[in-house]
């Protein structure tokens, strides 16, 4: 029994980080219908920023979020302007984004490998290896911090979308791009901003990931499959859906890993992707799409 609860705790402790990683991706898809296959590559990029800040100047990775988030925001704004802004009216925009972001992911991987080699990296602040011991249970401090920060960020994002003027404009654009334009939302600007916010989330995710996992340039390949399944399971474009599916799959993967060994954990995500596409293609909290 203790073991079963212990595994549940470990799963939940990871869920928040997964949720943070997928939140940006689902936002980007929701607003612009961009399938961002470079999302995980951007996360790794941010993780490297945190890594070097830690290695060179001993900047705590949680503190370095103050750097990675704005930097990745700017990267996002720039990337959107260069790659997508002029194509937004193309009827096959979403198809284009799949190819463009896939290519971008490979380029990012290549550049990172060239600059930093393929050595496994991670930051190791003091809390990285220390657990909290709660009764008989063992909870890694790093994961608790990472998940707590992730949830705080996601809730902040949700409140921003729900209660601010710009947030409402973003939601309106997600729900009906044409109408958003009709009521005077500058959708080109909203799209650029949303891409920036989505990538700011990868900035935060990269910093947090740097002390809970090891990473290397080609690690994004493993992550993107998992992110895709989280985003699709939640319902593409649904923030709450991504959060729900992240915790759900993180916990299931933790059990799979415990009973069948960690090699089998990734299969949880792919199997979930497979099943959801078969039985509920719009995702848990997503909407059926027309056309």
């Amino acid at each position, binding site marked *: 029994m203790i073991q079963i609860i212990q595994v549940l705790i470990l799963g939940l402790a990871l869920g928040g980080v997964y949720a943070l990683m997928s939140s940006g991706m689902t936002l980007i898809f929701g607003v612009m219908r961009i399938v961002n296959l470079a999302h995980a590559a951007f996360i790794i990029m941010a993780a490297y920023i945190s890594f070097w800040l830690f290695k060179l100047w001993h900047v705590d990775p949680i503190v370095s979020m103050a750097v990675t988030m704005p930097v990745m925001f700017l990267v996002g704004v720039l990337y959107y302007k260069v790659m997508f802004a002029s194509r937004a009216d193309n009827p096959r925009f979403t198809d284009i984004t799949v190819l463009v972001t896939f290519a971008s992911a490979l380029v990012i991987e290549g550049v990172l490998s060239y600059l930093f080699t393929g050595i496994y990296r991670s930051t190791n602040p003091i809390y990285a290896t220390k657990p909290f011991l709660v009764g008989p249970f063992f909870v890694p401090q790093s994961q608790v911090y990472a998940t707590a920060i992730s949830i705080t960020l996601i809730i902040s994002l949700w409140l921003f979308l729900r209660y601010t003027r710009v947030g409402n404009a973003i939601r*309106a654009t997600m729900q009906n791009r044409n109408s958003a*334009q*009709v009521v005077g939302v500058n959708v080109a600007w909203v799209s650029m901003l949303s891409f920036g916010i989505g990538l700011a989330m990868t900035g935060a995710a990269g910093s947090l990931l740097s002390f809970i996992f090891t990473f290397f340039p080609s690690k994004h390949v493993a992550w993107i499959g998992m992110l895709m399944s989280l985003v699709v399971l939640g319902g593409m474009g649904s923030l709450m859906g991504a959060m729900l599916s992240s915790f759900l799959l993180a916990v299931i993967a933790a059990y799979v890993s415990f009973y069948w060994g960690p090699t089998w954990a990734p299969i949880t995500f792919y199997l979930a992707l497979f099943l959801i596409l078969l039985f509920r293609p719009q995702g848990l909290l997503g909407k059926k799409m027309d056309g």
Partner: protein
Amino acid sequence: MGTLVIENIVAGYGSGPNILRGLSLTVEAGKTYCIIGPNGAGKSTLIKVIAGMLKPREGRIIYKGELLNGLRADQVLQRGVCYVPSDRSLFPDMTVKENLRMGGYILRNSRLVEKRIEEIFAQFPILKEKSSQMAKNLSGGQQQLASIARAMVLKPELIMLDEPSLGLAPKVVQQIFGTIATLRDQGLTIVLVEQNARKGLENADQGVVLDLGTNSFERPAVEVLHDPRIQELYLGKRRQPLQTENTQ
């Protein structure tokens, strides 16, 4: 005077053919214009071009002496020209009230927007009743009403309605035209695109007939309504009996 002048507009979608081919039209302030014409004549395209949703390839649009073409949709809106699309495109997962608030998005003054919403609620009690319902749960007629109301939040001087009666039950169509009549009484300039040519013309001052992307014909609405050619083409009166393919 708030006159809208459209001069030799040429427009089309993407790299496709020209839909509008040198269309000119003058919309005088305070009047209601009903635009009719066959499918593909460019009725909706014309409205989209005026609203800034589609850039014209050639020509000029002048409103109150100011050039509108080249402006973005939000900039056209700032100048008092509102557009209600044909698909009743509310924001489905926002409440009726949130939808109305989005209508006042460009005002940047939430107190003013709330005041306007209260005025709208007073005018359309059904919207007040449904104010906290998600827009997607409204009936078709209520959605149409809400999307007209959403445009009214800006108190526009000129409102363009694209097929407001599309897909609505006859009784509801009656209500929507009742609403349009109210707007007329308030002195708004209205540009109405209608498939239901008879209803549209009955509620308009001027009738404009588009054909193949040009303005082929513009007369007072009553005259258009009684023009035999128009009656034959758009109003369902035929000189010859209908073909008898279904009547065996």
